């Protein structure tokens, strides 16, 4: 990029120039009064492409999906007031899952701030609790340096969304433009290397382990540590589980993989977590959906090694014995070096016995379901989706039962292929996220697994898909219920299905057609595979598969909220 220094530019030109400097391919956004100068500058260039969504929530989710599937920073541009408030759900979603993102928001002119001006809101105040950091730029002289900082903060340390609020007059003011080459902040210096003494302690524990377990989360994906984790786990021969956010961090089809753990984790993963004597937690945070009740988890004594970039994730819900703060690939490299240098003294017999124990847990076959059903089982649809796409698709999901079935039944062998809202649990995430994924990976197969309730939360983006010719395949597991809500009501609220039933659903086939896409209704098990094959063969078309599934199906295993992770409800027990 030609670096023009010392030129006079206005604020809007600076914003666009900064995005070009950062190598931004796509900006997801929606215009409005406060950002008109910026949109004018976008119009005059063609390096940064703008993707026009239909609602700002969609812009943020799309930037999020773009980032998750590509390891680049997602970028959004929204206007002041309602533009920002619409974006908040998306920002909070990205924050909970530590997704690197820069959001540029318009603001009313500086002289109008605080006057309850048209489309004014306290953007910095509203977003403060759901961003890694945010800025209000009151002087055009600070604009370039602030945007540089925003990109640096978003990507470094524990990643997260960073918002830059730019008043309209600042975008019109002129100053000498120079994009800073580096950033240095005395108050912000994330570590990379783990503490050598702690790593030695960890290596010692790993060698002594009789019932080891590796528990790896989203941090592995975010730090691009999946290849190193795989090398590490295979070298040691240990069992490995992934969290919902970590799926693909270790190959899902590998023999050493025990499946996902947690509230809807496999029997073997949860049992091995509870009964391990040395637990190695990597880029995971022991959250409530993963280990359930911490007091129950603490009943079995074990030594815990915890590797994480964020010190505040360590010893938050569970006390750990060996904390290692650092960048996961760096820490795993150091650990691998130590273990390779001296790997002879491990207890192979104990590990063998541990695997035998795990085999008995696996034999429970906790993910079994009725394969002979005459009504389409949702699990069956995901299994067929896996077969038809050869396990190579990018799969986004919304939130609820379909999300859990996708996580359980689609075996992710690679990182960044499973895109879902884990922390915030945002219904409406799947479709816009899939748009970002498809733009980041133009020729890839992208499937959005959703439900008839979730899909309606960001349905308007079907129009965006048409405009940018995004051939996403939507697999709508339509059970005419908010399935997960209904499941909880069945288990814990005496079958009183309060407001979890959706009457008056749209005809999704006609709806898809209305937006200019192809819609297909599937209501027979025998039609599932052929319909999927036909849909995925249509490389240049969005296909909306409305799959009528069993209304009564539940997600198993299930750990009821607040229970211990081994207190699972299994399908066979009902």
């Amino acid at each position, binding site marked *: 990029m030609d670096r023009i220094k010392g030129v006079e530019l206005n604020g809007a030109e600076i914003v666009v120039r900064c995005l070009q400097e950062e190598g931004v391919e796509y900006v997801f956004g929606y215009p409005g009064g406060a950002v008109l100068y910026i949109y004018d500058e976008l119009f005059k260039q063609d390096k940064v492409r703008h993707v026009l969504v239909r609602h700002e929530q969609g812009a943020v989710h799309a930037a999020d999906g773009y980032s998750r599937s590509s390891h680049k920073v997602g970028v959004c541009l929204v206007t002041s007031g309602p533009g920002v408030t619409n974006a908040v759900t998306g920002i909070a979603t990205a924050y909970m899952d530590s997704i690197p993102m820069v959001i540029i928001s318009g603001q009313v002119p500086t002289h109008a701030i605080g006057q309850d001006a048209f489309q004014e809101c306290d953007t*910095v*105040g509203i977003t*403060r*609790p759901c961003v*890694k*950091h945010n800025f*209000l730029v009151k002087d055009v002289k600070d604009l370039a340096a602030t945007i540089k900082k925003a990109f640096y*903060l978003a990507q470094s340390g524990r990643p997260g969304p960073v918002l830059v609020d730019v008043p309209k007059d600042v975008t019109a003011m002129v100053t000498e433009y120079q994009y800073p080459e580096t950033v240095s*902040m*005395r*108050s*912000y210096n994330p570590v990379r290397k783990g503490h050598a003494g702690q790593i030695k302690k960890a290596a010692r524990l790993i060698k002594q382990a009789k019932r080891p377990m590796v528990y790896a989360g989203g941090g592995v994906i975010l730090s691009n540590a999946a290849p190193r984790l795989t090398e590490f786990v295979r070298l040691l021969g240990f069992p490995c589980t992934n969290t919902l956010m970590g799926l693909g961090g270790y190959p899902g089809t590998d023999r050493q993989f025990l499946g996902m753990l947690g509230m809807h984790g496999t029997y073997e993963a949860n049992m091995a977590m509870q009964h391990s004597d040395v637990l190695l937690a990597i880029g995971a945070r022991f959250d409530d959906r993963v280990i359930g009740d911490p007091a129950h988890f603490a009943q079995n004594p074990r030594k815990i090694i915890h590797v994480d970039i*964020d*010190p*505040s994730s360590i*010893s*938050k819900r569970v*006390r750990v014995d060996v904390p290692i703060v650092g960048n996961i690939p760096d820490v795993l490299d150091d650990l691998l070096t130590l273990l390779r240098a001296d790997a002879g003294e491990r207890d192979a017999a104990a590990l063998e016995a541990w695997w035998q124990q795990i085999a008995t847990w696996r034999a429970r076959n906790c993910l079994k379901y009725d394969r002979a059903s005459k009504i389409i089982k949702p699990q069956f649809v995901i299994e067929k989706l896996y077969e038809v796409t050869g396990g190579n698709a990018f799969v986004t999901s919304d939130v609820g039962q379909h999300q859990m079935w996708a996580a359980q039944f689609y075996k992710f062998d690679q990182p960044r292929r499973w895109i879902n809202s884990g922390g915030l649990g945002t219904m409406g995430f799947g479709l816009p996220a899939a748009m970002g994924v498809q733009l980041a990976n133009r020729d890839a197969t992208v499937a959005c697994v959703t439900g008839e309730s979730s899909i309606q939360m960001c349905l308007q983006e079907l129009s965006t898909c048409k405009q940018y010719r995004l051939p996403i395949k939507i697999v709508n597991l339509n059970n005419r219920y908010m399935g997960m809500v209904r499941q909880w009501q069945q288990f814990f609220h005496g079958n009183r299905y309060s407001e979890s039933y959706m009457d008056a659903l749209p005809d999704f086939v006609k709806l898809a057609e209305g937006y200019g896409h192809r819609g297909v209704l599937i209501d027979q098990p025998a039609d599932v595979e052929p319909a999927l094959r036909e849909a995925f063969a249509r490389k240049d078309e969005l296909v909306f598969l409305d799959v009528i599934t069993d209304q009564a199906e539940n997600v198993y295993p299930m750990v009821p909220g607040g229970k211990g992770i081994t207190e699972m409800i299994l399908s066979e027990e009902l």
Partner: protein
Amino acid sequence: MRRVISILVENEAGALSRISNMFSARGYNIESLTVAPTEDASLSRMTIVTSGSEDVIEQITKQLNKLVEVVKVVDLSEAEHIERELMLIKVRAGIKEREDMKRMADIFRGRVIDVSDNTYTIELTGDCRKLDAFIQALDPGAIIETVRTGASGIGRGNRVLRV
């Protein structure tokens, strides 16, 4: 357990609310909070008095350190430190009470800084317990108005918090 946490933070708009927001969002308690710029105008020094178990205090310091504008955090109560708080207290001081009130202020090394026909305003400095004790020592009916700054803290001896 009561803890006194000292923070050096970039002197920027929004830094204070980022910190107080974090306390309320995570359900931590703030007993008092004081903040003012230091000798380096780009830095503010904050003293927060809070309470919680070991685990909670550990999380508070970690969460504070995580905030981008926070430069340094130290738990002063981990070692020897000094705390001081300033109180301005307006009390009834008519002809009858005047003598007694002045004597009471002297005992606590307070100073009368404003006088009217029937009031004294007393300035009193000390740690929180001393200020509490002064209030306790007065007849509740005599107190008209109380203003306290909250504690400021500093480490003893060579214990220093600076960039």
